[in-house]
């Protein structure tokens, strides 16, 4: 009997059975609880909020959807100073975080050597104490007649900041400077950690190569280090700006009535004034503004794979 006469091998298809319906549903069962949670407690609330923002009525009589879009205009007209202030403070704090955080991230990535882990622990360590307690500590540090204010006063720094409108009456507490200082402090780790992650990935030999090609340290930084750390800069600025823009803790604890941010307004409208439509409209505008800025920023910086 020749080989060719052998009965044909059973088709491979029969061995690899089609996965049973149960197996095929596994990924969906895995996905379902988490996605359902986000749909019900994140996405659905947005719908409710959208509907609340176009309702009219009162707490006693109840609210009804009347497509009253004027609420948005009224809210903007009444509270645009707080809006502008929020974006301004958050933007300034983000810039300061970048300026302060970059050297420290650079230090950890390239200069710390055997101290690297210790410095990293010190960067994260403040997190272990509740941020409200730490923010209250700034009340002591920036207190009138305290060491910081005295030094700034003696060096005439307070005259300059007062001229710029950041401080007044030779005090720091209850001024925009205190709020920005608190915001910068609270969100610095969110800037430093992504910066460090992207700096750490840079091959040290690139610096040597730049040096061998007669680049000065400044040129090396501008042409090699900074461009390669851009993903860290982008995610760091986002992680700082987004929460800072909606924050009201720093403005309430370290500021005054003249430094209120939009978060404070949303909070008091919702929890004290109980004007739900206005609060919902404000919150929606904040969300839209932040999402718009973030989208434009991500597009411009060309790191869309981030999302």
């Amino acid at each position, binding site marked *: 009997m020749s080989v060719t006469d052998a009965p044909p091998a059973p088709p491979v298809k029969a061995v690899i059975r089609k996965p049973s319906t149960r197996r095929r549903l596994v990924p969906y069962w895995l996905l379902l609880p988490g996605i359902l949670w986000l749909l019900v407690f994140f996405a659905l609330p*947005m719908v409710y909020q959208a509907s609340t923002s176009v309702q009219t009525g009162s707490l006693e009589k109840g609210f009804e959807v009347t497509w009253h879009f004027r609420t948005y205009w009224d809210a903007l007209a009444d509270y645009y100073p707080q809006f502008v202030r929020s974006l301004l403070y958050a933007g300034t704090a983000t810039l300061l975080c970048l300026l302060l955080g970059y050297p420290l991230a650079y230090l950890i990535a390239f200069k710390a050597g055997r101290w690297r882990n210790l410095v990293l622990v010190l960067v994260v360590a403040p997190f272990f*104490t509740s941020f409200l307690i730490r923010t209250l500590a700034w009340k002591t540090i920036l207190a009138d007649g305290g060491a910081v204010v005295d030094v700034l006063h003696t060096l005439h720094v307070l005259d300059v900041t007062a001229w710029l409108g950041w401080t007044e009456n030779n005090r720091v507490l209850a001024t925009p400077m205190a709020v920005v200082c608190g915001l910068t402090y609270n969100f610095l780790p969110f800037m430093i950690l992504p910066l460090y992650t992207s700096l750490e990935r840079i091959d040290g030999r690139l610096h040597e190569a730049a040096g061998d090609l007669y680049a000065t340290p400044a040129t090396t930084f501008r042409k090699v280090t900074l461009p390669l750390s851009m993903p860290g800069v982008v995610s760091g600025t986002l992680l700082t700006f987004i929460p800072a823009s909606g924050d009201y803790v720093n403005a309430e604890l370290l500021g005054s009535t003249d430094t209120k941010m939009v978060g404070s307004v949303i909070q008091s409208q919702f929890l004290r004034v109980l004007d*739900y439509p206005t609060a*919902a409209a404000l919150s929606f505008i904040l969300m839209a503004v932040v999402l718009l800025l973030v989208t434009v920023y991500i597009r411009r910086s060309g790191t869309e794979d981030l999302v």
Partner: protein
Amino acid sequence: MPVLRLLRRNLVVIAGLLTLAYMILPNVVVMVFSFNRPEGRFNYAWQEFSLDAWKDPCGVADLCGSLSLSLRIAVWATVGATVLGTMTAFALVRYRFRARGAINSLIFLPMAMPEVVMAASLLTLFLNMGAELGFWTVLIAHIMFCLSFVVTAVKARVMSMDPRLEEAARDLYAGPVQTFVRVTLPIAAPGIAAGALLAFALSFDDFIITNFNAGSTVTFPMFVWGSAQRGTPVQINVIGTAMFVIAVAVVLAGQFIANRRKSNAGK
């Protein structure tokens, strides 16, 4: 001048250390003021050294109650978010879906949203449903915002996993369950642990979302917030300092053990 040259050479190091000092300073103040005996209700100005607060950390009404409530919420939120988040992360990495982009945005958006927006919208949902604000609403909210962070942490780990390890396990006749428990899970464990730790920290320290959805329930951050209006007891600083010291000690001990193991393995 040699001093100036030294300064110029080490400009980055000096700037970095100054930033570090800026970040650590408040913790030092919190620690120092835990030994204060303040005059009046607020603990913002130094008066004299005292151990009173350390001897009686729960001496203020509701303080330790709020602390234990925060711990309970943080533990359950961590469990919930870690289980749901790990399942979601595995599904996203291992399988192909329709609407993948939509699902990814749904997971990304909570992290790209100012907290106050999520807090306010969740409150409108609870108000519309007539839900009673308290422990459960806070727990639901915490699981919601921790979930995305867990998914991101676990996903990163599972994605960098070598699929050949699981194939090898199956080639060696391990069943799907055995492969998962003995191979997949141990490799994914650091990602899951990182996600869980992050969830715990986020939940324990959360103020804005909690403040909106807690009703009259008082967590520890809410207690601190209230005390900023009514008067800050020294005990707050004691608890803040204790948390800091314990956490740093645990981290340093972990580092120490890891280093010893590494040097032992090197021998």
